[in-house]
C-alpha cells in the first residue's frame, strides 16, 4: 500500500438534492503504482470526472478514502490538500483553464511561485521551449489558439515536477491533428520525467497508448485490464 502512488478504498460519492440521492461513484477501488500510465474510460455521466476530482483532492468523498503518495486526503483540510497538490500533482484540463489575466509564461510560473521558489522565469521558459511556445511567452491566453493554450497548460502541469499527472480529456476540445500533437507531447514529457499519468478519455485509441485501462459505468468499475492483455472481467 505504501508503495502505490494512488490508492482509493471503497470510494463512494453521493449527491443529494432535496430528498433524492444520486450515487455517482459506488465503492470504487483503484491502485496505481508510481510511473504507471492509466486511462479511465466510460460513457458520459459515468463518473469519470468525479473520480478524477476525488483522487486529486479537489472534492470530498461521501465515504471511503483516497491515499495520494501515502497521504490520506480526507483527513486533510482544504488548504492542506492544496499543499499536497502543489507538491505532487499536475493537471491538464479539457478546457485548458489558463488564467486569462496572466501571460503564457506567468501561467507556467504560478505552480513554482506557489511553492515559494524564486527565479522561476528561466525554468518556466525552458518548459515553454519544450512545448514550442517560447516566442509566445508574453501573449495572453486569449491571443493563443486552443492547441497553443493546451500546450501552455501542459508546460504548466510539468512545471512543478509532479509525481502524478491528472488529465481530463486533454484532447476533447481539439481537432484530430492538434489532438494527436498534444497527445505526443504529453506522453513524451511524461516519459522523460517518468511521471504517473491518470487520464480520462473517450478516445479508445488514446486509451490504448497507456499501460492500463479502467472502464467505469454507472459509478462502478466494470472492467480493468492491462493493454495488450486479454480482456478479463474484474471480480
Amino acid at each position: 500500500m505504501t508503495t502505490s502512488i494512488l490508492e482509493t478504498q471503497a470510494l463512494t460519492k453521493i449527491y443529494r438534492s432535496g430528498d433524492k440521492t444520486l450515487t455517482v461513484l459506488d465503492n470504487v477501488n483503484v491502485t496505481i503504482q508510481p510511473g504507471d500510465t492509466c486511462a479511465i474510460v466510460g460513457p458520459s455521466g459515468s463518473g469519470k470526472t468525479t473520480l478524477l476530482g476525488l483522487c486529486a483532492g479537489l472534492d470530498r468523498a461521501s465515504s471511503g478514502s483516497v491515499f495520494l503518495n501515502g497521504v490520506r486526503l480526507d483527513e486533510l483540510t482544504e488548504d492542506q490538500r492544496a499543499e499536497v497538490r502543489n507538491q505532487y500533482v499536475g493537471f491538464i484540463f479539457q478546457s485548458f483553464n489558463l488564467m486569462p489575466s496572466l501571460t503564457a509564461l506567468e501561467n507556467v510560473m504560478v505552480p513554482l511561485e506557489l511553492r515559494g521558489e524564486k527565479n522561476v522565469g528561466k525554468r518556466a521558459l525552458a518548459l515553454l521551449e519544450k512545448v514550442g511556445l517560447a516566442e509566445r511567452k508574453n501573449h495572453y491566453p486569449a491571443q493563443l489558439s486552443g492547441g497553443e493554450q493546451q500546450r501552455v497548460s501542459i508546460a504548466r502541469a510539468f512545471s512543478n515536477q509532479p509525481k502524478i499527472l491528472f488529465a481530463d480529456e486533454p484532447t476533447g476540445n481539439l481537432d484530430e491533428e492538434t489532438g494527436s500533437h498534444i497527445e505526443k507531447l504529453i506522453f513524451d514529457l511524461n516519459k522523460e520525467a517518468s511521471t504517473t499519468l491518470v487520464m480520462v478519455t473517450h478516445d479508445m485509441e488514446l486509451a490504448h497508448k497507456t499501460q492500463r485501462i479502467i472502464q467505469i459505468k454507472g459509478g462502478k468499475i466494470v472492467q480493468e485490464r492491462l493493454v495488450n492483455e486479454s480482456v478479463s472481467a474484474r471480480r
Partner: protein
Amino acid sequence: MNYSWLLKMAWRDSRKNRSRLLLFMSSIVLGIAALVAINSFGDNMQQEINSEAKKLLGADLVIESRQPFAPSVIDFFDSLGGEKSEEVSFASMVLFPKNGGTRLVQVRAISGDFPYYGEIEATPQTASTSFRQEQRALVDRTLLLQYKATPGDSVKIGNLTFPIEGSVSKVPGESELTMSVAPPVFIPLSYLEATGLLQKGSRINYKIYFKFPENANVDQLLENTIEPRLTAEEVRYDTVSERKREIGETYENLTGFLNLVAFVALLLGCIGVASSVHIYIKEKVASVAILRCLGGKGNQGLGIYLIQIAAMGLIGSLLGTLLGVLVQFMLPELFSGFLPVDVTITLSWRAIAQGVLVGVIISLLFALLPLLAIRKISPLTALRASFTHEHQSRDYIRMVVIGLIILFVAGFSFLQLEEPEDALFFTGGILLAFLILTGISGLMIWLIRRYFPVGWSYIWRQSLSNLYRPNNQTLVLVITIGLGTALITTLFFVQNLLLEKVALTGRDNQPNMVLFDIQSEQKEAIADITRDFDLPVMQEVPIVTMRLEAIKGKSVNQIKEDTTSHISRWVLNREYRVTYRDSLIDSETLVEGKWQGKVQSPQDSIFISLEDDIAESMGVGIGDQVTFNVQGAIMDTYVGSTRKIDWQRVQTNFLVLFPEGVLERAPKFHVLITRVDSAQVAADYQQAVVQQFPNVSIIDLNLILKTLNDIVSKISFVIRFMAFFSIVTGIVVLIGSVIISKYQRIQESVLLRTIGASRKQILSINALEYFFLGSLAALTGVFIALLGSWGLARFNFETPFSPSFLPILISYLAITLMTIVIGLSNTRSIVNNPPLEVLRKDT
C-alpha cells in the same frame, strides 16, 4: 504567506482590469471629497476662532446685567483699571421720517471705544467712530437698503431724531444671520436718556466691555476679584476664552452634522463598491479555482483581490481627498451668512489623513463582504464548467465584517456627534433606511415573480424578469438611488414644513401683529388708533414683571447656596412677566387644581396658576407657597392650579397667571394684539403708532415670516449642497453598475439577436427594465421621505403633515428618466456593434 508574490499576482491580474477597478472606486470619491472638505473647513474655522477669539468678543471681558449697575459697582469697575466701554441695548421701533417706514430694531447705545479688538465695519468706515461724538446713528446696512434711507437722512428713535452717519455691515461676534434677525442701530450712550426709551417695560441689557493691559490674566482677575465682589448682583460674564469655547462648540456641532451628511454619501458609495466587487469576483471564480487546483490556498486567492481592492480604495480616497481640498474653497461662500469670522482656507493635514484613512477602511470593509466568498471557491469548479454552490455554511468572518462595519459607522458618528445616544440614533436610522430599502425592493421583486403578468407582451415580460435575473443589481441600485431620492425629497418636505408652520400662525383670522411696551396711560389711545384703522383689538393684556423671592418659604438665595437643590438657576433668576385675569383663555387647559379668577379681599390668600413645566422645575405642587418680589413689594401666593399652554399660537402666554384683584395697582405695561391683512395698512398703522408713541414696539409676524424664510432657504441650500454629494454618488454607482453589467448584457443581446430580435426590441427591453428599476428606486425613496417627514412633522414640529403632490411627481419623473438615460447610453454601444465583434472583445 508569501506577500511579495501576492503583490505580484495582484499586479499581474489587475493589468486587464484597471479601468474597471478604478470605476468601482469612483463611487467613493465624492463621499471622501465631501468629508475632507467639511473637515478641513471645520479645522480652518477652529483655527480662525482661536486666533480671532478676541475679535469675537471685541473686548477682554464683558459683564452683562438686566439692571443698571449701581454707582458703587461702577466705582468698583473703575478700580479695576484698563479701559472700558458701556452699552445699553434693547428692542425698539425706529422710524424713518423720510418715508415713514418703521421697523423693530436692536438699539445699541454705546460709550467708550468698543470694540477694542476687531472693528465695526461701516460705510464710510470713519462713521464707526465719528457717530459717537454727536447726536448721530449708525444703522444696519440691510435696514437702510430696505427703507431706502442713506447716510445723511435721519432716523427717529424714541423722542429723538438722529442724522444717519453711516451704515454698519459687520459687528464683532455677530454673523449676518443674527444681524438680520435683530438689525442693530448704534447711537451714542449720552443721548439715550433723551430718547425716553429707558422707561420701557421690556428688557434692557446693560453691558460693560473691558480692555485690560496686554499682560493681564483676565480669567484670574474674574475669579479672584470680580466674581467675589459681584455675588449679590445678577450679572453674566463673558470672557474671550469662554466665547471661544461657545462659538467653537457651535461650529463643531455644525461641522459634525455636515460630516454625517458627507458620511452618508460615502456609505452609499461603499454599497456601490460592494456590488461592483461582487460582480467582479463572479468573473474571477474560474481563475481562483484554477489557482486552487494548482495548490493555492483559500487565503492566497483572497489576498490577491484584497490587495487590488485596497490599492484602488487608496487611489479612490486620494482622488476624493484632492477633490475635497478643491471643494473646500467653495465653502466659505456657502456658509458666509452663518460665520462670525472670515475663514481663510489652508490645507488641514488632519482632515486629509482622516479622509484617506476613513476611505480605505470603509471601502475595504464593504468590499470584504463579497471578497470573502473567494475563500469558499472550490477547486472543483475548474473541472466542471458550471459553478456549483457548495455547502453554503454560515460564514462567521462575514458576520464579523458586518459587525465591524456597523461598529465603524457608530464610532464615526460618535466622533462627530459626541453623544452616544445621537450616534446610536444615527446608526440605527441608517440601518433602518437600508432595511426598508432592502425590504421594499425584495418585496417588489417577490410581487413581480408571484404575480407575473403572463399576459403581457414579450418585451414587457422580458424586461420585468430582467429585474431578478442572476447577478442582478436591482437591490444595490434601489438602495443607492432610493436613498439619494429620499434625502432630497425629505429635505424639500421639511423645508416646506418649517415655512408652513410659521405661515399657519398668520393665516385666517389668527393675530399677526403684537404691540408691546404700552404704558398704562397709552393703552386707551392705542386701542383707539387700532380701531381707527378698522383693526380688531384681539387681546389686550396687562403685564407686571416680578422676580422670585422664595419657594415654599425657602429664599432664593438659600436655594442657590443649597448644593442638594435641583432647582435650576434660570427658574430662580429669571424675570417673570405675569398677567392677571378672571378666566382661562382657549390656548390654556387646566391640568391640576382649580382656577380661582378673583381675590375678593386683601386678606384672602392668592391662588395663582403655573404652567405645568415650570411648576415641575420649581418643584412645587398644588397648595405650595411661592413668594414673589413685585418691584419691591413682597407677595406670598399659593399654587392653586397648573395649566398646559399651546405655545403654537400668536398670543401672549404666561408661565405665571394671577387672579384679578391683586396686581391692578402694580407698575405695569400692556400688550395689544391685532390682525392686519394688507401690507400697506400694516405700514401705515405702525407708523401712526410709532409716531405718537415711540416707546411702543411692534412685532410684525409677516416680517418674521420673511426673515425666517430667508434663514430656512439659506440653511436648506447648505444641506442641499451636501445632499448633492449623495445624489451624484448614486448616479456614479448607477453608471458604474451599468458599465459592469455590460458583458452580461452583451451576451444577452447577442443571444436575443441570434434568435431574431431586432435592435429596437432589445432597446425597448432595456429601456423598460431601467424604467422599472428607476421607478422602483424613486418610489421607494419617496416613500421613505414621506415616512421620515411625517415622523418629523408629527413628533418634532407637532404640525399636521400634508405633502404636496407635485414635488413627489417631479422627483419621481426626474430620477426615473435619469436612470433610463444612463442605462440606455450603455445599451446603444452594444446593439450598434455586430454580435460577433462584441463577443470577441475581452472575455
